[in-house]
């Protein structure tokens, strides 16, 4: 009970601290912090339009967060979701624009292609770590830059739609193949992908022997070897699954929002997912509310711009502060008196 309270209260406290610090920052630039908070709330959750905009942003974040959360079970810190999202999206666009058939079939092919490519990309970092001892955090970060370069090269070169003049894009996947909205809502179906993927991952981690084995590897790799677990396979599998989730986020962005792969895909959802995963303490279920919260904050950027004449990147400052306070608050874990059970 106390451990659960600690797991919830520490990140919530850190978020409050981040809001306070952001308020100080707003005071310094001459804005009323209370008005800013009110606008963030209004822009994120204050109306049905705000909710729709929040959910649209939360959808890819739930998936990219898994790219950090699943490998984290096996003790890896992976920040390669951005690259997996881009290449996954590119693969989805390439498949979507070339495969003919029923829309559902095309969509399934797009999703599979995106997941395979995204998964393979992040597995590169896992393989480097397992076989050569390369730090997976650094390698997955660097793989992001390689992915961006590769993405730009392909979108502006071999895969470019000649009709896309000002904004180089791949061929469009076609209106019929787009993911639609939830009936009666202006929220695309990609959100369902995220929710289902999170639930499945939570079941995998919490309730299956595979997830248990992953957590043993993450907790103590020597104990895992003693138990005869296939450590390399588990590490690669975790990276592959995480990468598949991020790749699927790319497919959702292409199939539900942009209709083709282009520079709009480079929107930072991969990095935001890392933030989501850390705030959620790498718990796939907690990823959902946290993604919603950060989606709301991101969605409110426009409000701040319109009403207070602040650049819409101001909310990135809030995100950055939140990341720092969360990481700092992690060090308090187990050190606060209130949460330490009295030893018998």
């Amino acid at each position, binding site marked *: 009970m106390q451990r659960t309270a600690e797991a919830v209260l520490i990140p919530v406290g850190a978020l409050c601290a981040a809001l306070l610090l952001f308020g100080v920052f707003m005071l310094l630039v001459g804005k009323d912090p209370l008005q800013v908070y009110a606008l963030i709330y209004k822009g994120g959750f204050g109306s049905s339009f705000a909710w729709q905009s929040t959910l649209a942003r939360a959808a890819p974040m739930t998936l990219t967060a898994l790219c950090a959360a699943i490998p984290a079970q096996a003790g890896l810190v992976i920040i390669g979701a951005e690259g997996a999202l881009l290449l996954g999206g590119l693969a989805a666009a390439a498949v979507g624009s070339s495969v003919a058939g029923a829309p559902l079939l095309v969509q399934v092919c797009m999703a599979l292609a995106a997941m395979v490519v995204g998964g393979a990309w992040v597995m590169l970092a896992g393989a480097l770590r397992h076989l050569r001892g390369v730090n997976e955090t650094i390698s997955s970060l660097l793989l992001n830059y390689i992915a961006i370069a590769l993405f730009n090269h392909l979108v502006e070169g071999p895969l470019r739609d000649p009709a896309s003049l000002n904004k180089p894009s791949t061929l469009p996947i076609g209106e019929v193949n787009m993911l639609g909205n939830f009936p009666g809502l202006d929220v695309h179906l990609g959100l369902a992908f995220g929710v289902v993927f999170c639930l499945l991952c939570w079941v995998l981690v919490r*309730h*299956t*022997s*595979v997830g*248990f*084995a992953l*957590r*043993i590897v993450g*907790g*103590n790799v*020597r*104990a895992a*070897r*003693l*138990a*005869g*677990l*296939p450590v390399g396979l588990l590490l690669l599998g975790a990276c592959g699954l995480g990468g598949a989730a991020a790749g699927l986020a790319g497919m959702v962005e292409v199939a539900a929002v942009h209709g083709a792969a282009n520079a709009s895909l480079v929107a930072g959802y991969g990095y935001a997912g890392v933030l989501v995963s850390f705030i959620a303490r790498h718990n796939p279920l907690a990823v959902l509310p946290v993604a919603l919260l950060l989606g709301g904050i991101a969605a409110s950027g426009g409000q701040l711009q319109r009403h207070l004449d602040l650049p819409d990147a101001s909310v990135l400052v809030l995100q950055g502060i939140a990341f720092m306070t969360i990481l700092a608050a992690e060090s308090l874990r187990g050190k606060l008196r209130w949460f330490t059970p009295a*030893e*018998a």
Partner: protein
Amino acid sequence: MATVALDLEMIDVTKRFGGFVALDGVSLRAPRGSFHALLGENGAGKSTLVKCLVGYQLADSGQVIVDARERDIRTPQQAHAIGIGMVYQHFTLVPCMSVAENLVMARAQVPMIIDWRREREALEDALRGLPFRVPLDVPVANLAAGEKQKVEILKQLYLGRRLLILDEPTSVLTPAEADEVLGYLKGLTRAGALTVLMITHKFREVMAFADAVTVLRRGRVSGTGSIPGLDVADLGALMVGTREGFAGAAEHASPAAPPARLGDRPALEIRALEAEGDNGLPAVRSLSLQVRPGEIVGIAGVSGNGQRELVQTLIGQRQRVSGAIQVGGVAYRATRAQMRALGVSALPEEPLGNACVREMSVAENMALRSFDRPPLAAGGLWLRRREFTRQARQLISDYKVKTRGPEAPIGTLSGGNVQRAVLARELSRKAAVLIVANPVFGLDFAAVAEIHQRLRKARDEGTAVLMVSEDLDELLEVSDRLLVMFNGRIVHETPTALADVGTIGRHMAGHAGMESSPSTQTTASSQ
């Protein structure tokens, strides 16, 4: 470098950790300019003693007298001020900095702005009188291990230390490098510039370089003397305990297993095994042994002779270089399926670090071997938490594990209870082979007896037990057959009932082949 060595005397030093007496009235004297060796098994109290001297720990009682004045050393800084310094087993130099930078930065007071030209001149001056040269401008990372250790010593001298404590200074060096470094130190002590107190496991170094030796055993001085006066056999006997001590232990020893109960075919057979240590050097060399069902085979040896690597190879934590391991006649590759099918269990040393996940609960840790099988996992996939708890409750009560409950993180248990929990897990299924390493290290008397009892019981039920321990008494008490490991090889084998401590001590020291008269050896082993 006209320093004068310190004269050291420690009188009646006692140190307790809770109920455990680490040092029990230890006295030691190292006169000015002497080279004093400190011998003892792991856990004998050597490190605690020198930590009390350098100020990392405070003794509960006892005196430290340096140059005829009693000193109250409470911090390392105070020890440094007196002129006491320490060189550790592992290097404390900054690899990417040059030797000169390392030396200057180590000083207690470094000015904000360093005038490197003046520092260089001062450094050259200070090092002029030393018999060996080290290149000052080379980054430490580019130096060989022996040179690094020399720089460590140089650093201490440069800082004006006149009593140097060395904690296994040669464990990272080749024998030739070790001889050079120790020979140099020996020269300094001869010249009266330095007093050396060296912790070591290597009898050879003691015989070649030390003037005097103090042997610790279980927190007490078991012997002391000047080196020409003691020979290797004496040292071995002092370190592992006397003949009388063994006779006492032998009374507890269970009768040797009757041959009928032993299976004919070995349950565990190792042939020509080769494995490397963390440093990439050979640690286990062409090692062969057999363990039959229903016997406990003990491996004795001074620590660092490849025992750790042998155990890690057997339990799946280290890749072997070559050689064959067979369990029940089947080639063994330490996979999970084989561990289960062939019944291989393990109780490695430091079970919390080697066999447990600290943050996971007792119940989860107890499920480490069985979580992917019914009844703990339906269909091998779906975890059933209730079964986890049920299994844990059963094992906790069977093995008397003291814990707040099955859900307590295993990291909150005491050492003995972690040991019990792991043993419970490893023996809860039928084990054909059990690999054990230092199973009672740091445990109290009652826990020791209980764990030994469990091992004997497993043996009596037909398990082949291979037990590596640095505590010879433990092996003499528990094992049926005793092997001695030295330098990665098995160098001696004897039934425990016929074991002679003197012979074993000599083999542990690697000196058996160099004994002066072969006849003594024969008589000794036939006793």
